[in-house]
């Protein structure tokens, strides 16, 4: 065995000779820490390499994270599932009422099936990963909320909100800005309506300030005009979001064993606009 002691003894670093035992300890610590980081990277890389590729409709909303750089928050079509509207719904499938429903933060598995449009859509939700999953694809999600909105306590409108761990897309400043702009893109109709509403609100405020002098009837008229305009605006915004969701998508990879998902690219109007390189 090579004796390293004399070698280190003659080459002091920071004044004192190197102590082999402490060197081994520090290297062991560093190896363990590096291994931990390596395992984190390896898990993702192997998922991106070997996972099943799916394309999920999404819309970019509300970007930015001061601590962790720029990111775009992604809201997926599969983020809110109305259980009875799912393709896999059958009479014998159980839709639980709120009380014994899906527990918050519990894991669930959503079966995804490809559509003719190229996008993947949710088929049905399972509490456990089914054993028989040869050709089937399941994505793992965490329950955010579960609610049934119905006076009759029927199972018609039970909605499950889920998070899949792919809701943030970190990007550089320029790309994040582009995505943000895309998210804010709106039809001219919306811009026009917003402008009208702002003007009306302004005159409404002015009228209120001079309320003593003005006729009360004027204010009533103004507020009567505002209500339908606001309703129209929110409908248009929702429609706009839907239109965008039809154009924008995330390419994700899903691990067959665990259902874990990772973002591997972005797609706009059927064209890949961003593709992750592994390294």
């Amino acid at each position, binding site marked *: 065995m090579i004796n390293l002691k004399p070698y280190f003894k003659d080459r002091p670093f920071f004044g004192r000779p190197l102590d082999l035992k402490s060197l081994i300890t520090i290297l062991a610590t560093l190896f363990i820490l590096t291994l*931990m980081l390596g395992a984190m990277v390896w898990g993702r890389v192997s998922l991106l390499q070997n996972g099943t590729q799916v394309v999920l409709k999404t819309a970019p909303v509300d970007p930015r994270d001061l601590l*962790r*750089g720029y990111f775009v928050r992604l809201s997926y079509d599969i983020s809110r599932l109305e259980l009875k509207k799912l393709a896999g719904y059958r009479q014998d499938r159980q839709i639980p009422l709120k009380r014994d429903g899906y527990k918050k933060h519990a894991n669930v598995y959503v079966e995804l099936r490809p559509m003719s449009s190229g996008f993947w859509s949710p088929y049905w939700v399972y509490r456990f990963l089914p054993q028989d999953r040869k050709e089937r694809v399941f994505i793992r999600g965490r329950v955010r909320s579960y609610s049934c909105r119905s006076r009759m306590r029927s199972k018609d409108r039970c909605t499950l909100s889920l998070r899949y761990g792919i809701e943030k897309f970190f990007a550089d400043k320029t790309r994040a800005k582009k995505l943000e702009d895309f998210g804010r893109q709106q039809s001219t109709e919306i811009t026009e309506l917003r402008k009208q509403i702002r003007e009306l609100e302004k005159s409404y405020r002015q009228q209120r300030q001079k309320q003593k002098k003005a006729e009360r009837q004027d204010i009533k008229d103004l507020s009567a005009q505002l209500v339908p305009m606001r309703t129209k605006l929110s409908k248009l915004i929702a429609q706009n979001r839907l239109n965008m969701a039809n154009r924008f998508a995330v390419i994700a990879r899903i691990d067959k064993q665990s259902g874990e998902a990772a973002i591997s690219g972005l797609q706009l109007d059927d064209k890949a606009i961003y593709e992750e390189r592994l390294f």
Partner: protein
Amino acid sequence: MIEIIIAFFLTIATIIGLAMTFGWRNLYFRLLSHDIKKWQTEGWISPENAALLLADKRPKGLAGRLVFLVGLLGALLLLFSAVSFVAANWDDMSRLSRLIWLIIILWTTFLVSWRLTANEHPRLAEIAYTLGIGLFGVNITLIAQMFHIDSHPPNGVLMWTIGALVAAALLRSKAALALTFIGAITWSMMEVLTYQELIHWPFLMVWGAAFGLTLWMRWSFANHLAFISLLIWTITSIIHYGDWSSHGTLSLFIMMFLLMLAVAFVWQIKNTQTQPYGFATWLERYAIIGLLPSLFFLQTLPIIVSRGLYAPGTISRDSNGSMLQGSFGWFPLTSLLLIGTVLLLVMSWREKLLRRLDLVFFVAIAASTLLYALISSPYAFETDGWLIAKETHKFLTTWIYGAAFLTMLIWLIAFGHRRGSDLYVWAALATFAVEVLYIYFSIFGSLLETSLFFLVGGILTIGLAYFLYRLHQRLEEPSTPASEVPS
């Protein structure tokens, strides 16, 4: 522009921090040795004295807590600047080069810390370890960002904590051990508060490992960190498990602190020979600091938190909860703690560490807390006088509780004085002042006209000040036997 300003301030702060860390002591020593030489030539001091003075003030490594703290601050700033630097150039790097950079920075920091330890700069080495472990956390965050990982943030904190634990165990680094406790409790809080874990048991595993390490390293400060983190976890678990606004939950805390006090007393009996007042003293301190505010808040609950306690029809009956989770969920555990506390107190009394009066007071606090919590439970009102009528409860809270609490505080002052504990005396005095003000505001404040209110308020406050002054003066007097007092 904003980045430049931040970078400028960061740099200045780091330079000041480092300059203070490295230069302060040396500068002082150089000035002093210059003066000493001068005094020696003038013949004011002998050469022996000069040598003694110089030896006393010669910088020994890095001394002084302030220097250490400033250095720590500098390390944190450096960490922040490293993060900003990498973040600023992040976009132009490939993933592989990013990873290599992250690993290089991590390794460099740890290797520098290691050399500092070998060169007998333990404090500076600890600062560098803090920096290194901080960087490990930054690496985790940046890798998560690189791969758009957004699944479960507490897992990242757990990974960081385990990294710190590994570093603490292998390198015997105090900074790493302290960060392990901080990481563990942060992780647990994130799980409990954000992800609604009912009771986060896995915390105890990490805590246990870190505590084992504390015992092995024999670092007394880490005992405090261990204790505080466990206390935070326990309190959060109880609050999360029960209901913060309930008297029962608070009574559970009070009983917990009383039990801690009793354990401290018994510990003193067992260890008076070997370890006079180590563990027991600080356990007692934590208990007193926890106990007095809890007792104070118990009476304010019907007013500040559950306004609904006195308002009809607003209390929701938790019919679904089991015995352990419902309105009486606290009861079995509190009773169990009460029994344990009383047994330990009796044991201390039999060993003559407590007087009979002290025993009576401690047991009275424990028993009346349990009783008060029991009659303040929503069920007590809902069943219309099942245990107590609403008006009786109001009267009890306003008058009896206040009077009993003040009496207890006066006894505690005497008890603290007898034991020679400043903490008891001052904590009790402070609580006494707060309690009197509370009673004054809650009872008189709302009844009087504004001018009268201020007049009475002024007189009462002056009276209180005088009373506290006299009380303190009495305590300051030496306790001489009556026969020796001059007439």
